[in-house]
């Protein structure tokens, strides 16, 4: 099952990534705005820059990426410039370690495209 699932996932994500390219080039500000709202709703509570619980310096998603990349990539998602639609989609639909997958009722494919558009902008701002 896992092979067909991954194959199906990437076939669709290729199509969606084209939408992301269009977004990036066209600078669809409405998509960035929608993506920002969805990011704040669905990603920020775990991947934001707030302090964590029980005295931890970071929220769990941010801390997990800090430990994973050890500075090679930013721990904060909104500073990442490499999160294309296909990468985002693979992580969101499959889940990653303790992050459960997101169902299409929680995040539609279009909303993933919007989040990618937002991250493309937020990472630029972070780099400035």
């Amino acid at each position: 099952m896992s092979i067909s699932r991954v194959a199906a996932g990437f076939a669709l994500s290729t199509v969606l990534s084209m939408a992301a390219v269009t977004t990036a080039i066209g600078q669809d500000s409405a998509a960035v705005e929608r993506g920002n709202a969805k990011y704040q709703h669905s990603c920020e509570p775990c991947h934001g820059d707030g302090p964590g619980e029980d005295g931890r310096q970071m929220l769990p998603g941010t801390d997990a990426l800090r430990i994973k990349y050890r500075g090679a990539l930013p721990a904060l998602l909104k500073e990442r410039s490499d999160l294309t639609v296909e990468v985002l989609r693979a992580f969101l639909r499959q889940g990653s370690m303790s992050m459960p997958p997101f169902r299409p009722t929680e995040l539609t494919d279009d909303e993933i495209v919007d989040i990618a558009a937002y991250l493309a902008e937020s990472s630029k701002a972070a780099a400035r």
Partner: protein
Amino acid sequence: MAILPPNVSEGDFESALREFRSAVGEDWVFTSDEDIHAYRDHFSYFKDQPNELIPSAAVGPSEVEQVQSIVRTANRYKIPLYAISTGKNFAYGGPSPNVRGSVTVDLKRMNRVLEVDASRNFAVVEPGVSYIDLYRYIQDRELKVWIDTPDPGWGSPIGNALDHGIGYTQGFYRDHFGAHCGMEVVLPDGEIMRTGMGALPGSQNWQEYRHGYGPDPSGLFGQGNFGIVTKMGFRLMPQPEHWRNGLITVPRRRDFISLVDRVNYLTDLSIIGEPWYGSPLQPLVGNTEFREAALDFNEDEMDRLAAAAGLHSFQVELQFYGSERTTLANWEYAKELVAREIPGARFTDGESLPVPLTREQIHETTGPYPTNMRRNITQGVPGIGVWYQTSRTEQNPNGWNETHIGLFSLVGRSGEAVFQAQKDFAEISEIVGMPSAFPNALQTGVNWYQFSFLMGNGFSVGGDNSPEGKKRSTEMLRRILEENAKRGYGDYRAPPMLQDDVADQYSFNDFALRRFNETLKNAIDPNGILSPGRAGVWPAAYSSLRGSLR
């Protein structure tokens, strides 16, 4: 299409899917392996095994009429359904059904906050609303009411309440099902019913008087499979003006008995919020002499070693909601009450803060004393920070907690009952060969439910995430549940893989309660289509599956 519902032909399933699509739209019926993946339990002990609880399809309605239509189709083709709200019931099965091949009814798109009344203090929501959503709705409108959130807060007030979830503020609100005030339900035949005053057309009191008139069946929908709840009201706590906390420690082990008595008194007079118990003796666990005394429950020796180390035996952190003056008066009263009963008790003032706390105050971890209290949840602020307990950490940089599971037994709300449970759980650990992660003698109850303690057995599962390792852990958990029940301990909640085992604990008079529930189930849901097997309630149509996960 990898999986079919049990006893349903491919042709019938295709026909049912067509009807589902017609009801909710092409985009909201999910059958691909990729989509179905997100409906599996991310923490399943049976992952990728032939008995993993995977649905055959999922359907996402956005309106109650669509839910009715789905239920009617399921009846026509005798397809088992399993309803989820936000699908975040992790540690208790996540979004996965009780029967492999069920069709998941994903209510996430029904995500409207229908009403928040900050004068009469209630909210009415749909199932797809999360605690975080409801909190933001209230904050955006600057309404002066609090929610009582579980931790983490990504789940749904409806889903959490229906699984008898809990919170951390004032007693009444912590019991999320107990704090509900009326619901709307789609019954197994597709009809809509409202409970309480919702049954009276034009009533002004649906969220104020939950009993209505005559028998109130609300309880059947908590951990039940008698309907799909599509709206539910909840009582909300008015935002207090001030919050204060304080620490009480007591020197001798047996002082814990009086301490619990006094705290119960304060709790049941609604003077305090959730009390957080613990033991200041944890630092002595590394001391061989103390550890041996604790493992032997040698109370005199534990007291002697505690006194020698200058430590007290037990503690409780109290919290007060009200005004600056009333919280101070209540804290002074709590001190007086305990000092009267327990010589040598010590009192440390905590913090005294106007509400709402700032973000910085919520995350402040230094204070007059080291605190165990997670402050956001005492302030009704939902978050996901606690998820670090399952995540990649510096201590476990390449792994995660794949066997995250919640199992808590109900224990009497007294010091004596806690001491007895400590000994019983230690004995059970010995019997099943699963050592406690800490000496049971230091364990205390959690007072999530106002009128009861909950305690875990103290074991630690995991470490071996191979299918065989998970199978061994599962068998161990089953033995523990069995041994707990022999000593009068029942669990309050369980993932589907253990729901039959927990239901077996409740066996009074040859399972009279279960027989009653199943008689009702068969009458109300003759095809057994709604969540068969949930909480061990099996309709006749699926009764052969009882215990099939063992």
